[in-house]
Every structure is written in C-alpha cells, then in structure tokens.
C-alpha cells in the first residue's frame, strides 16, 4: 500500500516500500519523478529507495492539490526501462583501504577473497542519489553481504571509500561521517561541482566493481 506523508507544508513523501526492495517499484518511482519534473508547480523531486520526495512552493500551490497530482501520476506511472550506461569502478580491496573487509567476511561466513568476489560479481543499479553530493545508493548487493550499518557512525570516512550498509553498496564522493562498512578504495571522482555534469552517475546506471590493476 503506497502511503503519502507530509514533509512540512511544501513537501510530500510518497512511500511505496512494501517489504524488500523492489526493482519494479523503483522504475515507477523514477517514471513518477520524470513526469512530475515537467509540471511547473513542482520545485523538485528526490527519488529515494522505493520512495519519492516532492517539493513545491506552498505560497503558490495548494498542498492538497499537489497530493492529488502526486497520487494520479504515481497511479499512472509504468515501470519503464531507463537509458542505462555501464560504469566500471576500479577498487583496491582490503588492507589499509578496506578496514572492515574482515568483519564483513565474518558476518557473511566467507573468506575475505570470497567476500571480494561476491562484491564484484553483481551488476548494481543506481537506485537513488543523495545524502551527500554525488552519493549513490546501489541496489543489487549479494544478500550475504547485507550487513546492518554500524551502531555509531565513523566521524570520518575518506573520499573514494567503497562501502556497503543496510543492504546497499556505495562509494564515498567526499570525506564525511558514515555508518557504512569500508571494503576498499577507488580513485574515481564521483562528484565535482565545477564539471558541466557534476555527478558521475545517473539514476538507472549500471555499476560494476573490478579490482584496480
């Protein structure tokens, strides 16, 4: 059952989560986001993981009218394929760059080598972008690696850290606090405010991790 919650007077959060992550629901979230972005009353849409935040100017727009629009667009949205590119992320795994590899391996009941292979084996999909500039929530993580986030976040995780947490994979686009577990490090620049296209990854992109040569 899809729920629509208030996020202040000028925001609505559509929550379509129903049990485990659904790829079909996520495609409908993106389609809803694309459609709403064409509406003049909509300020912005922020797709999350099986949910969508919509903002508008409550001075001009009646929240109940926006709620109606959101529900209509969501109901009519189809789970279309989106144009997808494949981005390959080279990673140095373990050692000083992957301080949680041993912990994750123990959690998964695998060797460190098997853990790395499990992380590299899947093709991930960019489900959502956010938290910090250029951070992507990647779906498709091997279920054995779905370790919960740390109870208390590290105050400093370095830019380029290749991380997993709460069933998702990600890469740190800047040095920041994080509660995710660190498997390795990449040199790839995920976000640069001065590039014409600041974020490296787009919604729907496919991501593969490989060992850095």
């Amino acid at each position: 059952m899809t729920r629509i919650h208030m996020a202040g007077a000028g925001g609505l959060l559509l929550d379509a989560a129903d049990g485990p992550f659904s790829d079909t629901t996520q495609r409908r979230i993106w389609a809803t986001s694309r459609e709403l972005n064409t509406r003049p009353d909509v300020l912005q849409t922020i797709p999350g993981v099986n949910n969508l935040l919509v903002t508008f100017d409550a001075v001009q727009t009646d929240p109940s009218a926006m709620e109606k629009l959101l529900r209509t667009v969501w109901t009519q949205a189809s789970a279309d394929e989106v144009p997808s590119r494949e981005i390959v992320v080279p990673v140095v795994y373990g050692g000083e760059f992957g301080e949680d590899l041993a912990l994750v391996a123990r959690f998964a009941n695998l060797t460190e080598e098997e853990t790395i292979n499990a992380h590299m084996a899947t093709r991930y999909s960019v489900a959502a972008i956010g938290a910090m500039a250029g951070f992507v929530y990647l779906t498709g993580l091997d279920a054995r690696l779905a370790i919960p986030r740390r109870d208390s976040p590290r105050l400093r995780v370095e830019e380029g850290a290749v991380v997993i947490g709460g069933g998702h994979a990600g890469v740190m686009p800047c040095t920041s606090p994080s509660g995710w577990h660190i498997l390795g490090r990449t040199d790839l620049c995920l976000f640069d405010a001065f590039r014409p296209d600041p974020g490296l990854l787009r919604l729907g992109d496919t991501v593969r991790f490989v060992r850095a040569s």
Partner: protein
Amino acid sequence: MIEILTGSSLNTIQDFGRPHAMAMGVAQGGAMDRLALSHGNLLLDNPVDAAGIEIVFFPFRVRFHAETSFAVTGAACPATLDDLKLPRDWAITAKPGQTLTLRAPEQGARAYLTLRGGLDVPPVLGARSTDLKGGFGGLEGRALQKGDRLSCLAASTLRMPATGYGLARPCPVPPADGTRIRVLPAAEHDVFTPESLKTFHAAAWTLTPSANRMGYRLEGQDALKLSRPLSLFSHGILPGTVQVPPAGQPIIQMMDANTCGGYPKIATVIAPDLRLLSQTVVGAPVHFETITRDDAVQIIRQEAADLKRLAAAIATLRTQLVF
C-alpha cells in the same frame, strides 16, 4: 571592497542556497535565517536573495576600503561603525577606512551583513552560498578568514541619510526563556508510543552544543520510543525534518543537512519557525507545538505577504527620505 579583520571557521557567505541541486545530493544550503538576510537586502534595494555574510562567531570586524552601503540584520548584537552605535536592523553608508564591529549577540545567535549590490563571488550550481561540506561556493568553498577581501556586484549608489535608516520592527528573535517551534506531523509520527508523543509536545527540550548548519541536536529527560521496530529505506529529507535516531533524542535537520536519511521522522518544523530555531542559543529550551497543514500554509502565505508589503513600504519611504 571590504576586508575581513577577524577569522573563524563558521562565518560564511550565504544567499538562498541550491534548492534545485538537491536531486544531485547537494545540500539545499543558504542563510539559516532567510528572513534576516531578506530584510538586509530589502534595506539596500538589492534582490532579496543577494549574497551576504552569515556571522555566528563574534566579535566580527570588517574594514571598508571604498564607500559602501551596508545593513546589519538578524541577532541583536551591539554594532558600531567606528564609534557610531548602530540600532538593530539598520542600513548606513560607510566611508573608506571605516571599521564595522559586531559583538556577541544579546539576543539571538546569528547576524547578517549585507552590502549594496550583494557580494560578488562566482555562483556554483546556481548559488553563491558556501557549502562547507562540499567545499564549494562562497569564497573558495570555505569560511571567511582574516585578510579576505570581497567585492560587491555593480549597483548604483544608494542615497540615504548620513545616519542611515532601519526597520521600526526588527525581525523577531526568540526570547531567552524558550523558543516555540510549530511543526507538522511527519511520516513516522504515528509509530511513536502515545507517551512519547506526549513527551515530544510537553517536554522542554534543550539545544545541545552539537548545533551547526547541518543539524541541531536536542536533549530531553525522556527518550522518544517507537511502538514497534522500523527499518526504513533511505529517503529524501528537507531542512526542518525532526529525526529521532535509536537513542531517542531528536535531531532537527538544518540548511546544510544531508539530502537523504534513514532515521524515523516524528515531525517537520514549518519554514517560518526554522529561522527562529537558527536564532536559538545553545542551552536554551525549545518547545514543539503541532499545528495543522492548513494553519501552516496560512502562516507561510502571511509571511510572504508581509515581506512583499515591507519591500513596497521601504521602496516608497526611500523616495520620501529628506537628505
């Protein structure tokens, strides 16, 4: 041209931020007290969202190297231009060589220095606001340091009386005995226990020292509890969101907050009251009051109308000033 005479890691250039870059994961950013920045800009006949300096570290001193009209708004802090004491929410023209000094606020927490034309720093992702976490915007993506020199965008000279002019009713800052914050229920509001919902509204929460442009942590005697465990997928969050992490003490997301999060949300502070929270000092009590969405919309529309009326009144008065 102005020169910053006092350094700090907290005083930054801010405008209205980057609401359209949130989908990239970029914080909305912008002035924590948007109304105070707006008032300063209106006094100088600037665009309402022109970039100014948000000051949270005092004393703050700046020297004017050219004749410059400026305004000081926001917190009630003793302000002097050389030896001349300036009233609250005041605009005046400085002569070359004069120094403006702002001392620690008697009420409120942040002051805004706006300058005729607005500060001339390169816009990044559509705004001049400093994003300290991202390291871009403002001056080189950082807080202002001693010796920094800043210019303003070109604007015609503003005629004003030698002693300046100001607002008869400065924008309100919270009284020392507590800040009343109006909120709307958020997504997980109903999952909190009835006792916790009562506590949320009845308790005097204290603003902890862990309060910055990203978030304000509050502390209360009783932790807020959920009636059943929740595991939420990451979702978009806006400034004003009141999150409750497992420890049960609320964190209010402020202008530089992360754009996505995963903690349960009990409420959202309405936009006009978020500025009041930003003017609340560490250790002061904070009270929450839940209102309806209709009430919130009415308050927001009233504030927008008031600002429009003020802009028109200032424009009319400026033509009638006797020089």
